[in-house]
Structures are given as C-alpha cells and as structure tokens.
C-alpha cells in the first residue's frame, strides 16, 4: 500500500490498460484503455499504443473497474482547531484510501468556516497537496443560528455550499431569510435536519431498542419536521436545498413527494444509515453513536428503496473523526459520529451491490456523478478532455474491516469488525496517482 508525496509537483503521464470503464453519465461499462497526458484524459479506446514508452507509466487494470473518482459531499476535516483528530492532509490520505478524489468539507471547525479568509485557507491547503477540496461555509455566524453569514462574499471566496451541519438552523424565519437571500447567488444549502426540542438529551433512535436499553431516544420526528419545514421554505423562496444524511422512512417519503411537486431539492444518506439498523446498539458500542441516529430496520429499508428509485441522490460518508477518549467512555458521554471516507465505497458495494443487487453503475453514480452535479463541480465522469480523477477498483476482494486498517488519524469507525467487499487499487487525483494498493 503506497501513498505518493502529496506535495510533489512531478507530473507523469499515465496509461490505464485493459480496465472496465464505468461511465455513470451513460450508465455504460466497456473495456478500454485510458491515456492520461498532462493531467487530462486524452484518449479512451481499446488497445492504445503509445510511442514514448519512457514518459508514460502503465497501470495494468485487467479484471478491475475504472470509475470516476468518488465525490464525498459531507466530510469533517477538523482543521482548523482539532488537528489531533484529523487535519487536511490526514483526511485527504484517508479519502485517497477510499478512492475519493473530491470532498466537500463541513464548516464546524474551530474557528468555524464562516469568513472568507478561512474558506481561502482551506482552498490553499488543498492546492498545496494537489487535491480537490470544496469548503462548505456556515449559514449563520459561528453556527449559532442567530446571524446570517456573508453569503455573497463567501461564494466569491470559493464556498461551494452553505450548511449549519451539526445542529441545523432552528429558527424558521432565519432559515427562510437565508434561503431568500441565497437565491440571489444561486447558493446551495446543505441541510442538517434536527429539531433540538426532539433531540436534546437523546442518544439513539427512539424505538424498540432505546426502550430496551434505557437509552434516551431521538424520535425521527426530529428530522421529519425539519425536512417538511425546509421543503415548504424552499417552495416559497425557490432556494436550492440538499438534505444531508437523511435517516428516516418519513423523510424519504417527504422528499419523494417534494421532488414530484418540482421542489428544487436533492438529498443524501450515509453508509451507516443504509447498512445498519438500531439492533446493533445492544452492545453499547459507541462507534454506533451517530447523528442522526441509526434508525429502525423499517427506516433502513425505506432508505434502500429511496436509493433504488432515485429519491436519494447520493451517498456521503459524514466522516466525523473523534479521539479515542471521546469514544472509549460510557455511551451517554461519548461523542456522536463515525469516520467513513475509507468505507464509503466498500460499504456501499457490500450492501447495495452484493445484497440489494443495485447495478455497479448506479452505485458509482451515487458516490461520484450525482454529488458532483449537486455541488456543481467537475467530476463524476470519464471523458476525453476532462481532468483525470479516477478510482480503480476491485469488486471481488472481501475482508474483515479492522481498526488497524484505518488510515485516518481517528479510528472511530462503525464498520470495524464488518465483512466488507471491494478494494481500491488506485486513486488518481488531477492526473497523479495519489494512492496505490496492489
């Protein structure tokens, strides 16, 4: 397993031989070679021969799938402020390990990403290591839910979207004004839906298991009410909204209805919510303590159905690194969140391809093309002329996921101990091999 020096400026030309290319845009799979020159895809066809053998590095992709690099639209990098949990560089290595070539990072850092210089800081960091990071700015100052941020200026500085992730804007009027104003700039709002009156003090899904385990519940009403509110606000304001990490059956239903009515809405779910139900909580393992909580099997099946029928547009990791001492304590005291960059593809493949029989093209769309489109960024496609962001994957591999395998600085993964399918063989970012694993 190898990571390239992220800061090196060396460019090399690449040729990927004999892989199966997946193009989510056309939902096609075909065998072809791909030639990458100067960081861009210059040719896709069978049996490409090249003259200058020395200057082109060859990748043998026989038996492997060549996909657009994955796009994770919900990541917590923890920099600035909590670098002991993760920083930009360690987070990027973790993303590379997961075949991810572009990430959107959330603003709940210390200080909060609510000013132009911090957005620029992240962009500079990303450029230094030749990686695609799209910072999401806070909707309200310091995520306090009280004062609206400088949406216009932040967009100019490079904010890809706006989110008060971690809590959500509780004040409906403020959210409404944010949407109305954001509309002037065609801003995208990534909404964490949680009604604090329902969730405060809660630890896990309110239901059969919370009752049994004596753990305070968080009713799915906490999410559903806010989803409904924001659909209404979007309808009136016309703002472009994306509901992140949806967890409940009712939310899926509400969003499906809103889409049918033409509301400008998209949504994602996380690997945890499509993979687990709340029966996993019986051992009080704090790695399953996430927000929104892992819900019932009924909800999980609705999430799967939403992915299948297109109601849910994307899968994100909600990569949330935490120190061991924030997880190796009682369930009540433990922090919410699981890391997920490295398992985004594997968990999706395991559950959706092998169990639920969704097509590989569909799954790749959910973690590349669709999030790229939602964020309105480059990516999600393999076509001549575009920048080479590529993940080369092996779908036949199968392993128990262990804590020792984790690249991220934090080890709090819900997937530890799970049998997962799939492996990333190469991650190519902006024409450079960032990670290889043979």
């Amino acid at each position, binding site marked *: 397993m190898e990571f390239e020096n992220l800061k090196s400026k060396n460019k090399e030309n690449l040729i990927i031989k004999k892989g199966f290319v997946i193009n989510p845009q056309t939902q096609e799979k075909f065998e072809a070679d791909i030639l990458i020159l100067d960081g861009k895809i210059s040719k896709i066809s069978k049996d490409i021969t090249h003259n200058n053998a020395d200057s082109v590095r060859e990748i043998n992709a026989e038996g492997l799938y060549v996909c657009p690099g994955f796009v994770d639209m919900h990541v917590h990098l923890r920099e600035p402020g909590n670098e002991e949990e993760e920083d930009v560089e360690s987070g990027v290595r973790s993303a590379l390990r997961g075949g991810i070539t572009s990430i959107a990072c959330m603003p709940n850092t210390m200080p909060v990403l609510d000013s132009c210089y911090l957005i620029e800081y992240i962009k500079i960091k990303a450029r230094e290591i030749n990686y695609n990071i799209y910072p999401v700015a806070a909707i309200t100052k310091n995520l306090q839910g009280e004062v609206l941020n400088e949406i216009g200026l932040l967009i100019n500085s490079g904010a890809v979207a706006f989110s008060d992730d971690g809590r959500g804007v509780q004040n409906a009027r403020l959210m409404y004004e944010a949407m109305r104003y954001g509309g002037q700039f065609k801003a995208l709002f990534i909404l964490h839906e949680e009604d604090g009156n329902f969730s405060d*003090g809660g630890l896990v899904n309110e239901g*059969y298991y919370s009752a049994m385990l*004596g753990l305070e519940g968080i*009713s799915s009403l906490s999410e559903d009410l806010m989803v409904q509110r924001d659909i209404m606000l979007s309808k009136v304001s016309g703002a472009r909204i994306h509901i992140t990490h949806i967890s409940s059956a009712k939310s899926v239903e509400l969003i499906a209805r809103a889409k049918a009515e033409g509301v400008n809405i998209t949504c994602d779910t996380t690997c945890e919510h499509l993979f687990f139900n709340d029966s996993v909580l019986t051992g009080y393992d704090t790695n399953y303590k996430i927000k929104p909580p892992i819900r019932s099997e009924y909800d999980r099946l609705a999430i799967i159905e939403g992915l299948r029928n297109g109601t849910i547009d994307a899968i994100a990791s909600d990569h949330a690194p935490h120190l061991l001492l924030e997880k190796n304590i009682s*369930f009540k005291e433990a*922090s919410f969140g699981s890391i997920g960059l490295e398992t985004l593809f594997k968990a999706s493949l395991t559950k959706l391809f092998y169990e639920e029989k969704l097509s590989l093209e569909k799954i790749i769309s959910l973690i590349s093309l669709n999030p790229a489109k939602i964020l309105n960024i480059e990516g999600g496609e393999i076509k001549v002329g575009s920048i080479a962001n590529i993940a080369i994957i092996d779908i036949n591999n199968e392993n128990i996921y262990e804590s020792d395998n984790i690249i991220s600085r934090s080890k709090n993964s819900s997937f530890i101990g799970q049998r997962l399918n799939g492996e990333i063989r190469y991650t190519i970012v902006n024409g450079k091999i960032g990670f290889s694993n043979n």
Partner: protein
Amino acid sequence: MDKKKDILSLDEFSVEQINEFLIQTESFAEILKRDIKKVPALRGKTIINLFFEPSTRTKVSFEIAAKRLSADLINFNTSSSSLRKGESEIDTIKTINSMENDLIIIRHSDSGYINYFAKNVPVPVVNAGDGKHEHPTQALLDLYTIYKNFTNLKDLKIAIIGDILNSRVARSDIKLFNKMGMDVKVVAPSMLMPEDFSSFKTKFANNIDEVISDADVLYMLRMQFERQERKFYPSIKEYNKFLSLDMARFNLMKKDAILMHPGPVNRGIEISGEVMDIETLNKDKIKINAQISNGVAVRMALLYYALS
C-alpha cells in the same frame, strides 16, 4: 480459568437457575436470623463498592451483605464529572484495578456503562444499577419477596406503576417477572412510557384504577425526578389523581395482594403518607420493609455466587 461471573443483567440466567437461586437465598436469610449474624464464607475476599451515583439503600445493603459473609468491603465514592471527557473514568478504572480486589459492585448513572466497565476489569462485576437500563439485584430481591409471599409465581398478576420510562427497576423487573411466567402490566402516562415498548412484552394501562382491584402485586415506582431530563408530566396533583396509591385505593386491593416499592418512597406522590403510616400494622400486605431485609439475603447469595 473459568469465565468471571459478572452479574450485569439477569438475561443470562435460566428459569431453573432463578428458581434454584430463590431456594438458595433461604440459606442466606437464615444467617440473618441468628444471634451471631456472620459466617466466614468470604473471609479474606475484598469487595469494592464503587458508586458513581449517590445511593444509600443499595450501597448499605451490599455493605451489610458483604460483611455478613466476612468479606472486606471498601466504599469508593466518586462523582463521574466529565470535565475532561473520558479521562476521569478511565483513570478510576486503572486505580481500582491496581488495588487488590476480588469483586466490584458498581453503580453508574449512564445506561450501559457497566458493560464497558466490566470489559476493562479482570474481576467479577456486579451491577448495582446503570442509568435507566438494569438493576438486577433489585429485581431479584423483588422476585424473592414475591416468592416468599406466594411461592407459586406462575400467572401472578403484577402491576408496575409510575415512571416506566426512566426506571431501571422497571426494566429489570419486567424482564425477570416475564421470564418467571408472571402476568405483567405496566401503568403509566404516555410521557413516562417509551414510545415503543413492545420489547417489554407487557400489557399496558394509563390509570391505577384499571388494575387496583385485580393485581396480586402492586409495584409502585419512585417518581424519578432526578432522572427526568425532559420534564413533561404536569403536576403532582395530576399524578395523585390517576396514579397514586391513597387509602381509598389501598382498601380496594385484593385480600391477598401485596404492595411493593423499591424505595425511597416519595410520600404523597406515589404512595400517600396515610398508607405509609400503617405499614407496621399491615406487614402481610405492605412489603416495602420486607424488600429491604430480603435485599441483604439476596445480595449475600449473589456475592457468594459471583465469587464461587
């Protein structure tokens, strides 16, 4: 080396084991009737009473139980302050481990903490109550009290009344009583019940009057104001009207029915002062003090079991 005998919940015990345990407890109750109430059974054993949450009854009950069996018991009180999350608790566990001890009795205000704790210590751990989750020794002493009174447990009608949502006693009792084939009904207002209580496998009522003249055992829970993080119940007056046991209701109880409460009773909330004051005259019916003395025998038996 045998697996250490943690007693975290009663889930692992079969009906036969529970029955056997009830019989065995008699042998320990006998010691308490002697002039010299002490046997050398656990001489030289060190037991740590680790309470992360204030408690008087359970702590003292375990202390007496250990001393009646000649074990050395050390009280270790600590507040689970989370100034710097995690650190204090991990350090406490390390401290406890480095003291020579044979068994740890532990109480903590967080559900499931005991499971985490038991994984990190090499000696048997006895759960003296974790959050809203389990209180297995209370459930056993409750069962023993009922067993002493009725002998045949099957199909006994028991009503558990009060704050089910926040009660570990209720959770442990419900599981144990169900296991023993008793007919369990819980009585609570909607906000003091979990939204989905199907895991309890019990019947349900909202009002004490629905069960008062039918139950063989009336089990009143303490209104756990200290454990209610979300307070939605309107008032004591409202509680008295629909859920409390007053004299008029006491008189409606079946002739052979008994009244129980895990203590301490909030006089005038779950049970009226009037009813509490007639306990000494109605020992056949009001078993609240019997529960306390039975608790010592049950805990003796449990300590002996855990160390054998």
